[in-house]
């Protein structure tokens, strides 16, 4: 390549890269830096920050209060339960889809993918309607004479867990499907020929070989669930607190921006650890999303 051509290519690179890099640096990276800054300064009177800023670690120390640690632990616990349910139902579903005729397989995969792209708010509302006091489930149960009055299916942890499974189950199916589809089922026959029963063949052959997909599914479900806001807010009705609703409260009624910033950064750190772990252990299935 001649010197002028290389210089021309440099200019071209600059021109192509500048808008995207500039936009993200200004409206994505810089705002995160500001959150980092605000998380280390003292809170002012009107909820925003003291000016000139007074640096402090207080916001992070406050986080170790039993109340907030409890909310954090609760979110992680709920996210684990939700992810476990998603994997437990998602894995057999992914297996089932992989065993269909190609024509059906594509249709079933489309059915798994459609919820991704439909409005999350609308889907959550659809579930809320079914679980409500006058919703379908309660009406059916009362109509059948099984229960005297409506069950409390909404505005509690149960509702939040059901809502999160409903919202994020498709996230779990796709990476596991990608793994199972590549699995060579002749290996199962080989294991069975060598005397392993079905359960043993599954546990010792199929599960280890599809584990990267399971790990990817775990992370891809756990990460958005632990930071979810809409589901705990609508299905929990203010009675179930998760990290995101806590952050939201710091920027709403509690008006404590520095503390809200500190929690946000802790949440981001948790999520990034998960994502890096997946890149490290999740194999090639990471590209399924």
């Amino acid at each position, binding site marked *: 390549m001649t010197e002028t051509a290389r210089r021309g290519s440099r200019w071209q690179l600059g021109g192509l890269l500048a808008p995207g890099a500039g936009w993200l640096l200004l409206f994505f990276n810089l705002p995160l830096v500001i959150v980092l800054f605000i998380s280390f300064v003292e809170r002012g009177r009107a909820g925003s920050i003291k000016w000139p800023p007074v640096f402090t670690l207080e916001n992070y120390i406050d986080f170790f209060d039993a109340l907030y640690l409890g909310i954090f632990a609760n979110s992680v616990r709920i996210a684990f339960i939700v992810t476990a349910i998603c994997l437990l139902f998602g894995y057999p579903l992914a297996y089932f889809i992989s065993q269909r005729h190609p024509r059906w397989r594509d249709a079933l995969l489309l059915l798994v993918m459609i919820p991704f792209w439909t409005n999350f708010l609308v889907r959550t509302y659809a579930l809320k309607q079914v679980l409500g006091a006058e919703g379908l489930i309660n009406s059916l149960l009362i109509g059948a004479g099984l229960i005297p009055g409506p069950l409390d299916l909404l505005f509690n942890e149960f509702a939040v867990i059901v809502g999160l499974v409903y919202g994020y189950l498709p996230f779990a199916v796709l990476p596991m499907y990608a793994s199972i589809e590549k699995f060579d089922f002749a290996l199962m026959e080989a294991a069975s020929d060598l005397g392993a029963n079905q359960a043993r063949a599954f546990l010792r052959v199929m599960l280890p070989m599809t584990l990267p997909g399971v790990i990817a599914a775990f992370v891809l479900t756990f990460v958005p669930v632990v930071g979810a806001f809409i589901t705990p807010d609508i299905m929990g009705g203010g009675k179930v607190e998760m990290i995101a609703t806590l*952050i939201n409260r710091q920027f709403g009624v509690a008006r404590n921006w520095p503390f809200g910033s500190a929690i946000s950064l802790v949440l981001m750190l948790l999520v990034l650890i998960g994502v890096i772990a997946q890149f490290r252990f999740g194999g090639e299935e990471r590209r399924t999303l």
Partner: protein
Amino acid sequence: MTTETLVASAPTRAASRVRLGRWAFGANAALVFGFLYLPVAILIIFSFNDTRSVAVFTGFSTEWYLKLAANDELLASARNSLVIGLIVTVAATVIGTMTALAMDRHRFRLRTAFDANLYLPIVIPEIVMGISLLLFFNQALFPFLETLTRYRATTGLHTITISHIAFDIPFVYIIVRARLADFDRTLEEAAQDLGADEWLTFRRVTLPLLMPGIIGGALMAFTLSLDDYLITAFTKGVGSQTMPLYIYSLVRRGVTPEINALSTALLVGSIGLVLLSLTAQGGVPLFTRAMGIGGVLGLMGYTLRNLITLLGGGEAALGGVLFRLLLLVPVAWLWRALPRWRSDLQEANPAGRLLAVFSLLAAGGAAYISAILLLV
């Protein structure tokens, strides 16, 4: 018991277990799909109920849809969502495509770090991005601009638009980049050997081949912008209402058939957009051209109907008429695209033909409805 029966019973047992296994997997699949789709089906069914109940279906009516069409607050928020969505789509698609080209064709320092940075907005929790933008606008950008210009800016539709572009760029980037990965560079070399300069090669070879990815990315960007609640909620201003914000305020208040009707309309719209996006990414020019033709036909239908009422009513402002005539400019493109589309259509198989017609109708309907909402 003879050895014969022993030998015979073993395979039977195995077969029955296999059958049980199959049955269980089928049941699980039915359960999961039922769980995913039953609530949505119920939502749609009760949007046509003729009473306020969402548990007992008493009769068919379209009353709730008619109420929606007369709801000014809803129409205003739909208009805002559409305007934001269109601006965001154009900006994010252009910027995302440029970024994908830069990352695919050039090697430079910090390339890997920048690639990771492009994935970051997708993985970090939405609420973190929302609050970071809230703090950025109110604590940093606006005070900074105020010291420069003495003008105090506020959040509103413009800040929502800026934020949506920021989270949409990565999605367009990923989709176009995937398309570039399969790109055959020898086609560009062939064009240049035949005497085309770099710009002509880009316009006549690279861009048409990338078009399915670009259109897929654009539709994805549009859907995400149209559906976003959380980041919008943190970057909105006083009185800047979008469709998801409006739905959210309704959903928090309770369950009513109006929300069902609104939700159904939104579901149909976004599923239509996704199907279009998937068809576009399938890569056949038949579909992308069908969408273009549909869009132009939709605009044309709106313009003609509108011009007739404008001219017939007598209250035709010259500016309005000229602006509407401007919408007819793409018709020139239609002239070239239509014959080619029809010959492609004849070569396609029945399923492809059906999909192409669907793409055309969906794009046409979307363009027509958007024009009504935006331009009335």
